[in-house]
Protein backbone atom coordinates (compact mmCIF):
# COMPACT_ATOMS: atom_id res chain seq x y z
CA UNK A 1 0.00 0.00 0.00
CA UNK A 2 1.40 3.35 -1.07
CA UNK A 3 0.81 6.26 1.34
CA UNK A 4 0.72 9.63 -0.41
CA UNK A 5 0.15 11.98 2.50
CA UNK A 6 0.46 11.69 6.25
CA UNK A 7 -3.30 11.95 6.83
CA UNK A 8 -3.91 8.66 5.01
CA UNK A 9 -4.99 6.03 7.50
CA UNK A 10 -3.39 2.62 7.23
CA UNK A 11 -6.06 0.00 6.59
CA UNK A 12 -3.82 -2.98 7.17
CA UNK A 13 -4.93 -5.12 10.05
CA UNK A 14 -1.78 -7.25 10.27
CA UNK A 15 0.85 -6.35 12.83
CA UNK A 16 -1.00 -3.54 14.64
CA UNK A 17 1.81 -3.41 17.18
CA UNK A 18 5.38 -4.64 17.25
CA UNK A 19 5.68 -8.23 18.50
CA UNK A 20 7.25 -7.29 21.82
CA UNK A 21 5.89 -8.10 25.29
CA UNK A 22 3.37 -5.55 26.58
CA UNK A 23 5.70 -4.56 29.40
CA UNK A 24 8.88 -4.70 27.29
CA UNK A 25 11.44 -2.51 29.04
CA UNK A 26 8.77 -0.81 31.16
CA UNK A 27 9.67 0.34 34.67
CA UNK A 28 7.39 -0.62 37.54
CA UNK A 29 5.71 2.78 37.80
CA UNK A 30 4.80 2.80 34.10
CA UNK A 31 3.10 -0.60 33.87
CA UNK A 32 -0.48 -0.26 32.72
CA UNK A 33 -3.31 -1.91 34.67
CA UNK A 34 -6.78 -2.76 33.49
CA UNK A 35 -9.17 0.03 34.50
CA UNK A 36 -12.94 0.18 34.68
CA UNK A 37 -15.58 -0.01 31.98
CA UNK A 38 -18.15 2.71 31.71
CA UNK A 39 -21.49 1.59 30.28
CA UNK A 40 -23.11 3.08 27.22
CA UNK A 41 -25.78 5.70 27.89
CA UNK A 42 -29.34 4.34 27.91
CA UNK A 43 -31.06 4.62 24.55
CA UNK A 44 -27.83 4.97 22.58
CA UNK A 45 -27.91 3.11 19.29
CA UNK A 46 -24.65 3.96 17.51
CA UNK A 47 -22.02 2.99 20.06
CA UNK A 48 -18.24 2.87 19.60
CA UNK A 49 -15.82 1.56 22.18
CA UNK A 50 -12.84 3.73 23.16
CA UNK A 51 -10.01 2.40 25.33
CA UNK A 52 -8.31 5.37 26.97
CA UNK A 53 -5.08 5.62 28.95
CA UNK A 54 -5.69 7.05 32.42
CA UNK A 55 -3.24 8.11 35.09
CA UNK A 56 -4.02 9.95 38.30
CA UNK A 57 -0.87 11.16 40.08
CA UNK A 58 -2.75 11.61 43.36
CA UNK A 59 -4.10 8.07 43.50
CA UNK A 60 -0.68 6.52 44.01
CA UNK A 61 -1.73 3.88 41.52
CA UNK A 62 -0.28 2.87 38.19
CA UNK A 63 -1.70 4.02 34.86
CA UNK A 64 -4.73 2.07 33.66
CA UNK A 65 -6.90 1.63 30.56
CA UNK A 66 -10.52 2.70 31.00
CA UNK A 67 -13.13 1.63 28.50
CA UNK A 68 -15.86 4.03 27.39
CA UNK A 69 -18.90 3.21 25.27
CA UNK A 70 -19.42 6.38 23.30
CA UNK A 71 -22.75 7.42 21.79
CA UNK A 72 -21.64 8.62 18.36
CA UNK A 73 -25.05 10.19 17.68
CA UNK A 74 -24.58 12.44 20.68
CA UNK A 75 -21.11 13.81 19.87
CA UNK A 76 -19.17 15.43 17.06
CA UNK A 77 -17.18 13.66 14.36
CA UNK A 78 -13.64 14.08 15.71
CA UNK A 79 -11.67 12.27 18.40
CA UNK A 80 -11.51 15.51 20.40
CA UNK A 81 -15.31 15.61 20.33
CA UNK A 82 -15.36 12.14 21.84
CA UNK A 83 -12.99 13.15 24.62
CA UNK A 84 -15.07 16.25 25.39
CA UNK A 85 -18.22 14.12 25.31
CA UNK A 86 -16.70 11.68 27.79
CA UNK A 87 -15.61 14.51 30.06
CA UNK A 88 -19.02 16.22 29.90
CA UNK A 89 -21.33 13.25 30.18
CA UNK A 90 -19.45 10.28 31.64
CA UNK A 91 -16.29 11.04 33.54
CA UNK A 92 -15.37 14.65 34.38
CA UNK A 93 -11.98 13.58 35.69
CA UNK A 94 -10.66 12.72 32.18
CA UNK A 95 -7.85 15.19 31.56
CA UNK A 96 -6.41 16.31 28.24
CA UNK A 97 -5.04 19.45 26.60
CA UNK A 98 -7.06 21.16 23.91
CA UNK A 99 -7.50 24.66 22.65
CA UNK A 100 -8.12 25.59 19.02
CA UNK A 101 -9.98 22.44 17.83
CA UNK A 102 -8.79 23.17 14.29
CA UNK A 103 -5.25 21.82 14.09
CA UNK A 104 -3.26 25.00 14.61
CA UNK A 105 -2.38 24.99 18.32
CA UNK A 106 -0.94 21.49 18.66
CA UNK A 107 -2.27 20.98 22.20
CA UNK A 108 -4.31 17.84 21.64
CA UNK A 109 -1.52 15.72 20.10
CA UNK A 110 -1.88 12.13 21.29
CA UNK A 111 -1.46 8.54 20.20
CA UNK A 112 -4.64 7.50 18.43
CA UNK A 113 -4.92 3.90 17.24
CA UNK A 114 -1.16 3.52 17.42
CA UNK A 115 -0.03 6.65 15.61
CA UNK A 116 0.39 10.22 16.78
CA UNK A 117 -2.04 12.83 15.52
CA UNK A 118 -4.09 15.79 16.70
CA UNK A 119 -7.34 14.64 18.30
CA UNK A 120 -9.16 17.61 16.76
CA UNK A 121 -8.34 16.69 13.16
CA UNK A 122 -8.80 12.91 13.43
CA UNK A 123 -12.16 11.47 12.36
CA UNK A 124 -13.76 8.85 14.59
CA UNK A 125 -14.84 7.10 11.41
CA UNK A 126 -11.17 6.40 10.62
CA UNK A 127 -10.58 4.53 13.89
CA UNK A 128 -10.66 0.83 14.56
CA UNK A 129 -13.06 -0.65 17.09
CA UNK A 130 -12.17 -0.54 19.87
CA UNK A 131 -10.31 2.69 19.30
CA UNK A 132 -7.26 3.17 21.49
CA UNK A 133 -6.24 6.55 22.88
CA UNK A 134 -2.88 6.92 24.58
CA UNK A 135 -0.88 10.03 25.40
CA UNK A 136 1.97 10.92 23.04
CA UNK A 137 4.32 7.93 23.07
CA UNK A 138 7.41 7.89 25.28
CA UNK A 139 6.57 10.90 27.45
CA UNK A 140 6.53 11.35 31.21
CA UNK A 141 2.84 11.67 32.00
CA UNK A 142 1.47 14.39 34.28
CA UNK A 143 -2.12 13.16 34.21
CA UNK A 144 -4.17 11.04 31.80
CA UNK A 145 -3.44 12.33 28.27
CA UNK A 146 -1.26 15.25 29.40
CA UNK A 147 2.45 14.66 28.77
CA UNK A 148 5.28 16.61 30.37
CA UNK A 149 6.90 18.47 27.45
CA UNK A 150 9.48 20.33 29.56
CA UNK A 151 12.46 18.44 28.13
CA UNK A 152 11.28 18.88 24.54
CA UNK A 153 10.87 22.62 24.98
CA UNK A 154 14.30 22.75 26.63
CA UNK A 155 15.70 21.01 23.54
CA UNK A 156 13.88 23.59 21.42
CA UNK A 157 15.45 26.38 23.48
CA UNK A 158 18.84 24.75 22.91
CA UNK A 159 18.74 25.48 19.16
CA UNK A 160 18.08 29.18 19.90
CA UNK A 161 14.95 29.51 17.79
CA UNK A 162 15.24 33.21 17.14
CA UNK A 163 17.03 35.45 14.67
CA UNK A 164 20.73 35.83 15.47
CA UNK A 165 22.38 38.71 13.68
CA UNK A 166 25.80 40.34 13.79
CA UNK A 167 25.20 43.24 11.44
CA UNK A 168 24.14 46.48 13.13
CA UNK A 169 20.42 46.51 13.73
CA UNK A 170 18.73 48.08 10.72
CA UNK A 171 16.48 51.13 10.99
CA UNK A 172 13.65 49.26 9.34
CA UNK A 173 12.68 45.59 8.95
CA UNK A 174 15.27 43.10 7.66
CA UNK A 175 14.57 42.58 3.99
CA UNK A 176 14.10 39.22 2.36
CA UNK A 177 13.41 38.44 -1.29
CA UNK A 178 10.33 36.35 -2.15
CA UNK A 179 12.69 33.51 -3.08
CA UNK A 180 14.46 33.73 0.28
CA UNK A 181 11.13 33.82 2.06
CA UNK A 182 10.07 30.71 0.13
CA UNK A 183 12.96 28.82 1.76
CA UNK A 184 10.97 28.86 5.00
CA UNK A 185 7.95 27.15 3.48
CA UNK A 186 7.47 23.69 4.88
CA UNK A 187 9.38 24.67 8.01
CA UNK A 188 7.68 27.68 9.59
CA UNK A 189 4.31 25.89 9.68
CA UNK A 190 5.46 23.55 12.46
CA UNK A 191 3.17 23.94 15.48
CA UNK A 192 5.42 22.07 17.93
CA UNK A 193 2.83 19.41 18.72
CA UNK A 194 5.71 16.88 18.96
CA UNK A 195 3.78 14.12 17.17
CA UNK A 196 6.94 13.42 15.15
CA UNK A 197 9.40 13.42 18.04
CA UNK A 198 7.11 11.18 20.07
CA UNK A 199 6.87 8.78 17.11
CA UNK A 200 10.63 8.59 16.51
CA UNK A 201 12.20 5.34 17.77
CA UNK A 202 15.60 7.00 17.91
CA UNK A 203 14.19 9.62 20.27
CA UNK A 204 12.66 6.82 22.36
CA UNK A 205 16.07 5.27 23.00
CA UNK A 206 18.17 8.45 23.17
CA UNK A 207 15.77 11.32 23.78
CA UNK A 208 17.98 12.78 26.47
CA UNK A 209 20.65 13.65 23.87
CA UNK A 210 19.03 13.33 20.42
CA UNK A 211 17.12 16.52 19.63
CA UNK A 212 14.38 14.72 17.69
CA UNK A 213 12.62 15.62 14.44
CA UNK A 214 10.50 18.55 15.68
CA UNK A 215 13.41 20.46 17.17
CA UNK A 216 15.70 19.65 14.23
CA UNK A 217 13.04 20.90 11.80
CA UNK A 218 12.88 24.10 13.85
CA UNK A 219 16.68 24.31 13.77
CA UNK A 220 16.55 23.98 9.98
CA UNK A 221 14.03 26.80 9.83
CA UNK A 222 16.69 29.14 11.31
CA UNK A 223 19.58 27.61 9.32
CA UNK A 224 17.91 28.48 6.03
CA UNK A 225 16.63 31.92 7.07
CA UNK A 226 18.42 34.42 4.82
CA UNK A 227 18.38 37.05 7.58
CA UNK A 228 20.16 34.87 10.12
CA UNK A 229 23.92 35.33 10.53
CA UNK A 230 24.72 32.51 12.94
CA UNK A 231 24.47 29.60 10.49
CA UNK A 232 27.99 28.38 11.28
CA UNK A 233 27.52 28.48 15.04
CA UNK A 234 24.16 26.75 14.67
CA UNK A 235 25.78 23.96 12.63
CA UNK A 236 28.54 23.68 15.24
CA UNK A 237 25.96 23.15 17.96
CA UNK A 238 24.12 20.53 15.91
CA UNK A 239 27.15 18.55 14.72
CA UNK A 240 27.14 15.84 17.31
CA UNK A 241 26.78 12.04 17.14
CA UNK A 242 23.68 12.27 19.32
CA UNK A 243 22.07 15.69 18.83
CA UNK A 244 21.80 15.29 15.05
CA UNK A 245 23.24 11.98 13.92
CA UNK A 246 20.94 9.76 16.01
CA UNK A 247 18.58 10.40 13.11
CA UNK A 248 18.71 7.17 11.11
CA UNK A 249 16.17 8.30 8.50
CA UNK A 250 13.48 6.01 9.88
CA UNK A 251 10.94 8.61 8.69
CA UNK A 252 8.17 7.85 11.17
CA UNK A 253 8.26 11.65 11.60
CA UNK A 254 7.25 12.41 8.02
CA UNK A 255 4.65 9.62 8.13
CA UNK A 256 2.95 11.08 11.20
CA UNK A 257 3.19 14.89 10.86
CA UNK A 258 -0.39 16.20 11.21
CA UNK A 259 0.62 19.35 9.34
CA UNK A 260 2.01 17.37 6.40
CA UNK A 261 5.54 18.68 6.94
CA UNK A 262 8.71 16.71 6.28
CA UNK A 263 11.09 16.64 9.27
CA UNK A 264 13.04 13.78 7.68
CA UNK A 265 13.86 15.91 4.66
CA UNK A 266 14.77 18.88 6.88
CA UNK A 267 17.27 16.76 8.84
CA UNK A 268 18.75 15.38 5.61
CA UNK A 269 19.25 18.99 4.49
CA UNK A 270 21.19 19.74 7.69
CA UNK A 271 23.41 16.70 7.10
CA UNK A 272 24.02 17.93 3.56
CA UNK A 273 24.99 21.39 4.84
CA UNK A 274 27.54 19.80 7.18
CA UNK A 275 29.10 17.94 4.25
CA UNK A 276 28.97 21.04 2.08
CA UNK A 277 30.91 23.23 4.50
CA UNK A 278 33.86 20.84 4.69
CA UNK A 279 34.12 19.63 1.10
Amino acid at each position, binding site marked *: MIIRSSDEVSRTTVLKRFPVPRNFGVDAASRIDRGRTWPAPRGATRIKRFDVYRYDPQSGQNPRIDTYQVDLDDCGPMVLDVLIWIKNTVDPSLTFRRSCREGVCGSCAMNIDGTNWLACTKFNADLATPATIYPLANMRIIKDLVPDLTHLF*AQHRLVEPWLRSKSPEPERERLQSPQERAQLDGLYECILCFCCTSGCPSHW*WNGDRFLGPAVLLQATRWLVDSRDEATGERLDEL*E*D*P*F*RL*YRCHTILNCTRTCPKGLNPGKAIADVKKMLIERRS
Partner: protein
Amino acid sequence: MSSARMRSPLGRALGLGSARDGVDAWWRERVSAVALVPLTAWLTVSILMRADKGYAAVVAWLKLPITTTLMTLLLIALFYHTALGLQVVIEDYVHSRIKIPVLVGMHLGCVALGVAGLVAVLKIALA
Protein backbone atom coordinates in the same frame (compact mmCIF):
# COMPACT_ATOMS: atom_id res chain seq x y z
CA MET B 1 15.66 14.52 45.67
CA SER B 2 18.47 13.67 43.32
CA SER B 3 20.75 16.30 41.85
CA ALA B 4 19.53 15.39 38.37
CA ARG B 5 16.11 16.76 39.26
CA MET B 6 17.49 20.04 40.59
CA ARG B 7 19.28 20.79 37.33
CA SER B 8 17.39 23.10 35.01
CA PRO B 9 15.67 21.52 32.00
CA LEU B 10 17.93 23.52 29.66
CA GLY B 11 21.01 22.38 31.57
CA ARG B 12 19.91 18.80 31.17
CA ALA B 13 19.18 19.24 27.47
CA LEU B 14 22.57 20.88 26.89
CA GLY B 15 24.34 18.06 28.72
CA LEU B 16 28.05 17.96 27.96
CA GLY B 17 27.58 20.19 24.93
CA SER B 18 28.05 19.52 21.26
CA ALA B 19 30.89 17.17 20.35
CA ARG B 20 31.37 19.21 17.14
CA ASP B 21 31.99 15.84 15.56
CA GLY B 22 29.93 13.19 13.85
CA VAL B 23 29.93 14.34 10.26
CA ASP B 24 33.13 12.38 9.69
CA ALA B 25 31.86 9.01 10.92
CA TRP B 26 28.59 9.57 9.06
CA TRP B 27 30.43 10.43 5.84
CA ARG B 28 32.81 7.47 6.07
CA GLU B 29 29.89 5.10 6.62
CA ARG B 30 28.36 6.44 3.40
CA VAL B 31 31.60 6.28 1.40
CA SER B 32 32.24 2.69 2.50
CA ALA B 33 28.63 1.88 1.58
CA VAL B 34 29.18 3.27 -1.91
CA ALA B 35 32.33 1.14 -2.24
CA LEU B 36 30.47 -1.95 -1.07
CA VAL B 37 27.79 -1.67 -3.75
CA PRO B 38 30.01 -2.88 -6.62
CA LEU B 39 32.25 -5.02 -4.39
CA THR B 40 29.46 -7.11 -2.87
CA ALA B 41 27.79 -7.40 -6.28
CA TRP B 42 31.07 -8.74 -7.65
CA LEU B 43 31.52 -11.16 -4.75
CA THR B 44 27.98 -12.52 -5.05
CA VAL B 45 28.26 -13.13 -8.79
CA SER B 46 31.73 -14.66 -8.39
CA ILE B 47 30.65 -17.08 -5.66
CA LEU B 48 27.60 -18.00 -7.66
CA MET B 49 29.71 -18.83 -10.72
CA ARG B 50 32.30 -20.81 -8.76
CA ALA B 51 30.20 -22.88 -6.39
CA ASP B 52 30.96 -26.62 -6.54
CA LYS B 53 34.15 -26.17 -8.58
CA GLY B 54 36.51 -27.57 -5.95
CA TYR B 55 39.49 -26.39 -3.92
CA ALA B 56 41.99 -26.00 -6.76
CA ALA B 57 39.58 -23.82 -8.74
CA VAL B 58 38.91 -21.58 -5.74
CA VAL B 59 42.65 -21.13 -5.10
CA ALA B 60 43.30 -20.43 -8.76
CA TRP B 61 40.57 -17.82 -8.76
CA LEU B 62 41.85 -16.15 -5.56
CA LYS B 63 45.36 -16.03 -7.06
CA LEU B 64 44.21 -13.85 -9.94
CA PRO B 65 45.56 -10.31 -9.33
CA ILE B 66 42.12 -8.83 -9.98
CA THR B 67 40.57 -11.14 -7.38
CA THR B 68 43.26 -10.36 -4.81
CA THR B 69 42.79 -6.66 -5.38
CA LEU B 70 39.00 -6.70 -5.20
CA MET B 71 38.94 -9.08 -2.22
CA THR B 72 41.39 -6.83 -0.35
CA LEU B 73 39.28 -3.77 -1.07
CA LEU B 74 36.15 -5.67 -0.10
CA LEU B 75 37.55 -6.75 3.26
CA ILE B 76 38.70 -3.22 4.10
CA ALA B 77 35.39 -1.60 3.10
CA LEU B 78 33.35 -4.40 4.68
CA PHE B 79 34.90 -4.29 8.13
CA TYR B 80 35.16 -0.51 8.09
CA HIS B 81 31.45 -0.26 7.30
CA THR B 82 30.63 -2.99 9.84
CA ALA B 83 32.53 -1.20 12.60
CA LEU B 84 30.86 2.14 11.89
CA GLY B 85 27.43 0.53 11.64
CA LEU B 86 27.81 -1.49 14.83
CA GLN B 87 29.10 1.62 16.63
CA VAL B 88 25.78 3.34 15.89
CA VAL B 89 23.80 0.29 16.99
CA ILE B 90 25.71 -0.02 20.27
CA GLU B 91 25.39 3.71 20.98
CA ASP B 92 21.65 3.44 20.33
CA TYR B 93 20.90 0.61 22.72
CA VAL B 94 23.69 0.39 25.32
CA HIS B 95 23.37 3.07 27.97
CA SER B 96 25.33 1.59 30.85
CA ARG B 97 28.97 1.93 31.77
CA ILE B 98 29.87 -1.04 29.58
CA LYS B 99 29.16 1.03 26.46
CA ILE B 100 32.70 2.29 25.90
CA PRO B 101 34.40 -1.07 26.63
CA VAL B 102 31.94 -2.72 24.23
CA LEU B 103 32.70 -0.11 21.57
CA VAL B 104 36.43 -0.55 21.97
CA GLY B 105 36.12 -4.35 21.86
CA MET B 106 33.93 -4.20 18.78
CA HIS B 107 36.33 -1.90 16.91
CA LEU B 108 39.36 -4.02 17.82
CA GLY B 109 37.47 -7.16 16.81
CA CYS B 110 36.65 -5.68 13.43
CA VAL B 111 40.27 -4.71 12.86
CA ALA B 112 41.44 -8.19 13.90
CA LEU B 113 38.95 -9.95 11.62
CA GLY B 114 39.76 -7.66 8.72
CA VAL B 115 43.48 -8.24 9.11
CA ALA B 116 42.96 -12.02 9.40
CA GLY B 117 41.06 -11.95 6.13
CA LEU B 118 43.72 -9.81 4.44
CA VAL B 119 46.53 -12.08 5.60
CA ALA B 120 44.64 -15.10 4.26
CA VAL B 121 44.07 -13.41 0.89
CA LEU B 122 47.73 -12.38 0.62
CA LYS B 123 48.96 -15.81 1.69
CA ILE B 124 46.85 -17.45 -1.03
CA ALA B 125 47.97 -14.88 -3.61
CA LEU B 126 51.67 -15.09 -2.79
CA ALA B 127 51.96 -18.81 -2.01
